[in-house]
């Protein structure tokens, strides 16, 4: 996105944020639900983008962390704890589990790592389904309360949408800061060339674990918001296909691009809704659209933009060079 002038970028960003606040005000219940879901999935996808897009560690377990966060929040809030405490617990829990899941990444890479995390995802699903003393088993947990924010109840869809949007904003700022900090650079060094990173003194071991743990913690936050959003959870939404969907969001949006997860989540959550008029065909069309997009641009949507801007910059640069050259020639 570096091709735009800075004031233009800020203006664009403010316009989008204002639109996200104002436009949904007269949306109906279902529209707000979908938009809240987009915010929640964006948070989860942002976590995966950190693990995969920035640190280069393939994970097929992000859905499981959303599940862990959702169950932590559901269990705690139905027992009378406030939501912020539940979110904190979800963060700590998924951070710790994510840290442990990072250990295999120290031994194996790429597709092997993908399979370990895939297995973990399935195991987590089995625990959600079978440990009914804790999770309610296949009957799930119902009547999950929504929080009071500054004394205001968020039971209605619009206030809770603002809770989701606010959380998304906080997480976005935190991630923005993180990837610009030395940590973010260490993550990217890990992705681009682990050997060189290590010889430059980056503790690759610690940063690999960190990439997993922080990415997973964001999944946990998403889950902790998902539970009060739907107010009822059962194991089915947190099976392997959620992990695959989240991975698809990150790749389709553009892995390693800051805005990739927002766009990816938009396509995965909103596009099927827009295609609903085609009735039974909508998921089929969605699948075809994803395949066509990836054939066209394997680096996702932002990859297209990135290529376009890079091309424009080279063109501009070569035009400048041509001008400079002709001037030199006239001087001679």
């Amino acid at each position, binding site marked *: 996105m570096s091709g735009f002038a800075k004031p233009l970028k800020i203006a664009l960003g403010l316009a989008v944020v204002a639109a996200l606040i104002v436009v949904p005000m007269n949306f109906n219940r279902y529209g707000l639900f979908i938009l809240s879901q987009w915010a929640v999935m964006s948070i989860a996808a942002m976590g995966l983008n950190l693990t995969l897009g920035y640190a280069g560690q393939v994970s097929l377990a992000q859905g499981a962390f959303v599940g862990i966060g959702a169950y932590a929040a559901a269990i705690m809030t139905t027992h009378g704890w406030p939501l912020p405490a539940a979110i904190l617990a979800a963060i700590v829990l998924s951070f710790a589990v994510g840290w442990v899941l990072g250990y295999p990444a120290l031994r194996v890479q790429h597709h092997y790592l993908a*399979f370990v995390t895939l297995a973990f995802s399935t*195991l987590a699903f089995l625990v959600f389904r*079978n440990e009914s003393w804790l999770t309610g088993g296949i009957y799930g947990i119902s009547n999950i309360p929504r929080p009071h924010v500054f004394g205001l109840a968020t039971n209605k869809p619009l206030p809770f949408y603002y809770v989701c949007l606010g959380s998304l904003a906080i997480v976005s700022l935190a991630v923005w800061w993180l990837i610009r900090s030395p940590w973010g650079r260490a993550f990217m060094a890990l992705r681009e060339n682990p050997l060189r990173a290590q010889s430059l003194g980056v503790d690759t071991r610690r940063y690999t674990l960190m990439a997993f743990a922080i990415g997973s913690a964001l999944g946990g936050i998403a889950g902790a918001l998902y539970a009060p959003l739907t107010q009822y959870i059962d194991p089915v939404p947190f099976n392997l296909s959620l992990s695959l969907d989240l*991975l698809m969001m990150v790749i389709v949006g553009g892995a390693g691009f800051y805005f990739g997860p927002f766009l990816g989540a938009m396509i995965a959550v909103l596009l099927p809704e827009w295609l609903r008029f085609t009735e*039974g065909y909508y998921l089929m069309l969605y699948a075809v659209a994803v395949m066509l997009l*990836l*054939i066209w641009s394997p680096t996702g949507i932002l990859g297209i933009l990135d290529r376009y801007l890079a091309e424009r910059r080279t063109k501009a640069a070569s035009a400048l060079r041509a001008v400079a050259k002709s001037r030199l020639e006239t001087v001679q």
Partner: protein
Amino acid sequence: MSNLFDLLVAGLATGAIYALVAVGFTLLWQTSQTINFAQGEFVMLPAFLILAAMHVGAPFWLAIILGILLSMILLGLAFKLLLVDPMMRHGVLPLAIATMALAIGIKEAVKQFFSAEASPFPSIVPTGDISILGQSVSLQSIGVLVVAILAVVGLTTLLNRTSLGHQMQAAAQNPTVARIIGVPVERMILLTFLINAFLVALASLLITPIYLAKFSSGEVLGQAAFIAAIVGGFNQVRGAIAGGLLIGVLDNLAAAYVSMQYRAAVPMLFLIAVILFRPQGLLGRAEERTV
């Protein structure tokens, strides 16, 4: 003990089917670095193609031939030309994601154009029980095992004893050198895609009579084949066969002796253990790590 014997035979039979699917999976990986997340759906689809052919009035044997041919065109030729070829040079991950989308597409198409309900499927091997050494054994299990073993033996003979097979292996192991010594690498890659399509169609014929034809049945199957391929060794055909049999037996024993609820966990834990302690798989060669 008759129970254990029965379990072993049933486990080997399902395992043999997993092995067929896993072998196809490793073939695609070896020749074109395709991780096919739609492999389970590839097994689900041929059964519906056969049912569709029977629906328009073809007799069962003709429907089978048509189904296998159509599978080879759709899941072999079209899959390679339309999806794998344009994406191959962009690395493993985008292609893997594209196959995930393909899996959704196939599932939804079957649900929309055929049925969301499970349909019965005729068996190509005789059903009933026979008695071997005083033990009664399901004839279907034996039949499945025999057909699968024949297919695997046929494939390994092709790969190891014929010139064509050697050319395929060369194309997989070192495409550049293979091209220099005159192996038509592109054609060999296409051939592995056709072989994979044939294997999944065969697996479909064998497994669908047992588990019924349903649009979602590919999920479990794909995962099992996946695990089988990794456990056995990603880069070895015989590894995939051993992995398939092992996972089939393990799965059946876990269902009987661990608990119905956690049966699916046993192969997963086994998978994690194998990857952590022997990442190249039980029978695989150690691969150089890229870094």
